[in-house]
Every structure is written in C-alpha cells, then in structure tokens.
C-alpha cells in the first residue's frame, strides 16, 4: 500500500462507483479525453466510453439541466463544474429543479445527482478560479453539501455521494488535490453526513472543512509544540450540519474557533457559531470566534496569502479565545 493523492483517490472512487452501477455517468467540460483540467476523471472515458463519460458543450446550465433530465430517466449523473466561479450559470437549474423536484413531486422524482466543484484558493489563479461558494448552496433546501478534506475521505465520500438518492454538491479543495495519504480499503468509512474529530485536544476546539483541514491540523501541531492541545473537527458535511461531535467537544473545551476560506458573514461558519451558542451556552468560556476569508470578492492572487486563513491567523484566533 502506497500513499495516493486526493486527485487519484477521487479518480479511484469515481471508477469504483462506475464499475458498481452502469447508471452512473460522468459529465462536464473536458472530463473525457483530457481527463478534466485537474485530471480527476483521467482515463475514465477510455475505459467506460463516450456515453458514460461525456465531454459536454461548454454550458453549465446545460450540464446541470440535462443531468436533471437524465436523473428523471433513471441515471445517476456526476457533473463536474470546472471551477467554483463557473457554477453560477448552472445555479438556476440547481436551485429551481435539482433541489426541488423530489419535494415538488412528493418523492416520485428522486434526484440522485452529484455536482463536483473544485473550490477555494491558494493556487495563484486568475479571478473566478478560487472562490468558496459553499454557503450559497448550504442555504438551499433540498440540497446536501459536503466537502472532503483528505484523500481517504475523498475516496469514500465521492462514492457515498453517488449512492445517495439526494442531490449532493460535492466540494473538493483544489489546492489539496496533490497531497497524499495512505488509503486502507479495509477500514470502513464513516457515514457521509457526519463530522469527525481528527485530533483530540482539551484547550480549544477548531471546526473546519475542505482546504482548512490541513491548515488546522498544522496549527494544532504547532500549538502542541507550545504546550497547547487543540481539538480539530472536520465538519465534512455542511448541509445538513452534523453538530453532535462539535457540541461534545465544546462542552469539554469551552472554546470554539470556526475556520473557513469563505467570507464569514451569513455563512456556514456563522451557522456553526449560532448553533453552538444555542446548544452549549453554559459550557462556553469565550464567544465563538471565526477565522475566515474577508467579505470581499476574491482578491488578485498576489493578495491571497493575506486573504486566506493560514496557520498564524488560526493560532491568533486560538490565542484570542484563550485570552478571553
């Protein structure tokens, strides 16, 4: 067993899902012959053919809108949106049809569609290639929203998302695509819609997801060197939120810092904070703090090191919590 990258883990996961169920289709721009701009679908068209791995016209509403129709027909499409900032032409179909058809039809028209979106910054890209729009989707009833934070989760979560009979918006932290981990297929995965404690600690709880999981684990390691033990929770599911492990942790630590790249106003991080003050009111030793991107459009990439929370900003948040 050798370590594999998140990109390869996603590729393997997609392949396993396609082998298991002939109704699973992969569709998107450049996903076929090229294997996707990040090579997540590399080799799939060669092995499964052009009718199961579709190089689509360049139109995001078309990708989602036809996936909805294919799902009505009984298929399980996995759509790739090339970059986070390009999903908005498809937003109408996601919100108006994909999210609502099950409810409108009272269960007669299930929508087992996965929309994969590489998200987040840190790759020095031009604008519209580094955004974190997950809160927009988490706000839409009828959708489920998840984000993987490491290769092992990526491998299992993509397969679980495809098996789900609900539409799942699947966020992939593009700057973590090439980080590696050991994948032991004998270790069964936790349920898709569950958060997980990745590192135990007693001083402060860090809640994070996607690209910030690695940042928070690094911060916890640095804090450990200074004698402060941080607990790190990977939320994994942003809608519905799985708050049980967060509550349990905060009741022990009394302190919570929520970390995300997305701007903080009216966000997933804001919802986590609101829920914790409601359910852990008497356990809190300090207000819930947020360490996030700023409420600006994503800046030119030469500014992104300042925009994105990094190890130091996370530890600054920890210090402010402890100093309260």
């Amino acid at each position, binding site marked *: 067993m050798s370590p594999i990258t998140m990109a390869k883990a996603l590729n393997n996961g997609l392949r396993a899902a396609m082998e298991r169920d002939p109704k699973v289709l992969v569709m998107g721009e450049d996903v076929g012959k090229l294997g996707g701009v990040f090579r997540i679908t590399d080799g799939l068209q060669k092995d499964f053919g052009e009718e199961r791995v579709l190089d689509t*016209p360049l*139109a995001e509403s078309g990708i989602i809108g036809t996936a909805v129709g*294919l799902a009505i027909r009984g298929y399980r499409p996995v759509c790739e949106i090339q970059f986070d900032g390009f999903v908005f032409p498809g937003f109408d179909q996601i919100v*108006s049809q994909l999210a609502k*058809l099950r409810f409108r039809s009272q269960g007669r*028209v299930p929508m087992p569609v996965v929309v994969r979106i590489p998200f987040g910054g840190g790759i020095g890209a031009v604008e519209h290639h580094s955004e974190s729009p997950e809160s927009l989707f988490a706000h839409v009833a009828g959708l489920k929203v998840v984000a993987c934070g490491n290769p092992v989760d990526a491998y299992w979560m993509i397969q679980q998302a495809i098996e789900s009979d609900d539409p799942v918006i699947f966020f992939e932290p593009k700057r973590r695509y090439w980080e590696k981990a050991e994948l032991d297929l004998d270790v069964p995965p936790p349920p898709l819609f569950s958060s997980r404690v990745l590192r135990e600690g007693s001083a402060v709880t860090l809640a994070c997801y996607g690209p910030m999981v690695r940042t928070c684990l690094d911060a916890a390691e640095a804090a450990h060197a200074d004698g402060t033990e941080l607990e790190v929770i990977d939320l994994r599911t942003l809608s519905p939120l799985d708050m049980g492990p967060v509550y349990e942790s905060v009741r022990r630590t009394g302190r919570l810092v929520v970390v995300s790249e997305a701007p903080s106003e009216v966000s997933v991080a804001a919802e986590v904070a609101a829920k914790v003050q409601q359910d852990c009111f008497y356990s809190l030793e300090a207000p819930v703090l947020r360490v996030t991107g700023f409420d600006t459009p994503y800046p030119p990439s030469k500014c992104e090191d300042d925009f994105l929370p990094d190890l130091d900003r996370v530890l600054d948040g920890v210090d402010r919590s402890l100093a309260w």
Partner: protein
Amino acid sequence: MPSWPGFVEPEPTAAQVIAGLHATVEGGQDLVQVLTPEGVRIAEPRFDRYLGDVDVPRLQSLYRDMVLVRRFDREANSLQRQGQLGIWVPLLGQEAAQIGAGRALTPRDMAFPSYREHGVAWCRGIDPTELLGIFRGTDHGSWDPAATGFHLYTIVIGNQCLNATGYAMGQRFDGKVGDAESGEATICFFGDGATSQGDVHESFVWSAVYDTPVVFFCQNNQWAISEPLERQTRVPLYRRAQGYGFPGIRVDGNDVLATLAVTRWALEECRTGNGPVLIEAFTYRMDAHTTSDDPSRYRLADELELWKLKDPIERVRVNLVREHEVGQDFFDEVAAESDALAARFREYCTNMPEPGPERMFSEVYAESSPVLDAQRDAFLAYHASFEGTS
C-alpha cells in the same frame, strides 16, 4: 432567396422587419395547414399520410377533446374569480395546438410541459382535477410523471427544455432510438417568450450535439405576458432551428389536424434517429396570461376579434357538419358531457382537503436530515400545543 457562393443577403430594413413580423399574424406562406379557418379540408401532400387513420369518429374525438378541455379551462377561470383558486393559467385558443400534439404521442413517449399545457395533460390521461392543487395551493403537482409520461409543470421559463433534452439523451443511451414502431421520443413544450432564455438555446445546442430524440414544441401564442413577438425575435421562430442544424417547421396551431400530422412526423423523425425537430405552433393566447393579468393594458381588442375568426374548435365543427354531415345530436352530447365535467371539476375543487403542517417537511430529502427533522418535531409540538384551545 438565392444562396450561391459569394451572395450576400441584404440586411432587411427596419420597415421590412416590422412588415415581416406583421405578416406572421397570418403565419406566412410556410404555415402548414390542412383545415382552414372556414372548416375546409385542403390537401397537404407532405403530411396527409400522417392523417390516414383520421376518419369521422376520430375527428369527432378530437373535437370532443378540445371542447372538454376548453370547458374545464373556463370553469377554472371562474373558480379563480370566485376565490376558489389562487390563480389560473388559461389555455383558451390553444386547444388545437395542445390536443394535436398530445394525441400524436404514444404511451412510451415523455412530455415535458410548461405550465399552460392542460390540454396535453388531458391527452396523457391526467384527470383535470389533478391540475387543481397547483392553482389552489395544496400541492406542486399531484400526478406521477413516470406513470403518465408527463413531467410536472415547470414554472421557471425554459428550464424544462434542458430537462427534456437530458431525458431524451437517456432514451438514446438506453437504445430506444432507431425503430419507428418501438422507438421512444420526448416532446418539450414552451412558449415564444421562452425562446429568449439561455436554457432554450443550450437545449437546442445539446440536442443537436447528442442527436436527441426530442421534439421542441413551441406554442407561439404571440404574447409573453405583455410583450409581443418582436420583443423576442427578428426572424420567425421556426427558422432558428436551421442555425442549430436541425429542421424547424411552422404549423397552424389552431388547426388540430395539421398539428397532429406535423407532430406525428416530428416524433417519427426522432424515434428513427433523425431528431431533434423544432415545431412552431402558430396560435394565439385568447385570454390573459393568467387570471392576474390585464391584456387591455397592452393589446387591442380587434386583434382578439381577428383570431376569433380562426377559432380552433369552430373550424372542426363546421367541417364535421359540412363535409361529414354530423348531426346536432353529437354536438349536444359533447356539450352535455362538458357541462358534467365542469360540474365534477367544480365539486372536486371546492372540497379539496388542505395539507397539514407536516406536508411541508415531507420528501425534502430521500435520507432524512436531522436538522429538518428537529425543525419538524419542534413545530408539530408547537402546533399541537394549541389543540383544545379556542
């Protein structure tokens, strides 16, 4: 128009464009018609073979369809005026377009309606009472799309064209295209206003690229709420298909026989692998956009008077009487049947049960969401706390 290499088609003047659009009030010389507004059956060499089975009983049946559909449509309008429906979307004037297209379908085919296709719903075996929930506010569509071959109404303009295209891609991937007898096709209904939507453009692109068996059935009823056709297009809508690489045809949408024939042809093209096809059914919205609309603010009454002369039902009645000597008994029977349908429709509407508070929490997700479950449980407990109080 000549088309040799090097020929440059002159740009039309503004006056020519306006004149061309005015000409479309008559449908122009490309309009396929087999039954004139005066009720005269005329020969149509290209499409008569698609009407070989239409004998007198069959024509009477099409007449009956249109009368019954118009009758419950009028009843629904009245029910809205009396406060029994929140809104109604009248189809008045579009009966032939919808019955002609709807009766061309087989049970294997799939239809994706907009929100005015009550006549197509009728042809798919959906009882008119099943349409009421949407407009009374008790549901978002109560029929089973898979069992009826009729998707739920789509209210966001043009969304359904992409959904239909995806469905038709699935028909092709499933190997259901190629044989005229056993093949499947999809038909997608939308209006002239929808043709301006990006989703409709994208669906034309995708359908062309994937050779999908989909008939794009555009009911050009001349008005998108208050906006006339010239706010949507410079060219007749059926000609747009050429730019996407598939056939487009304009049919008299007030002629049930022509619509039936042309739609049968288009579906056959799709079933045998020659899809997609665009049909522009040239018709007229004789009533308001919805019961909330007031057409007197934006169009002249004489336009309506002109279209009344081209009524889709009257021309069939005249044809049955003049060319087939159908007696008054038949028309009296249909009228009585339509009154009975309207009475049943009204009775059903005024007695519809209202959904309980648990309805809004049901079937949001396949796998329940703990967040939503908690909201439901808390609200139902709150709701129950009022029981026994007045």
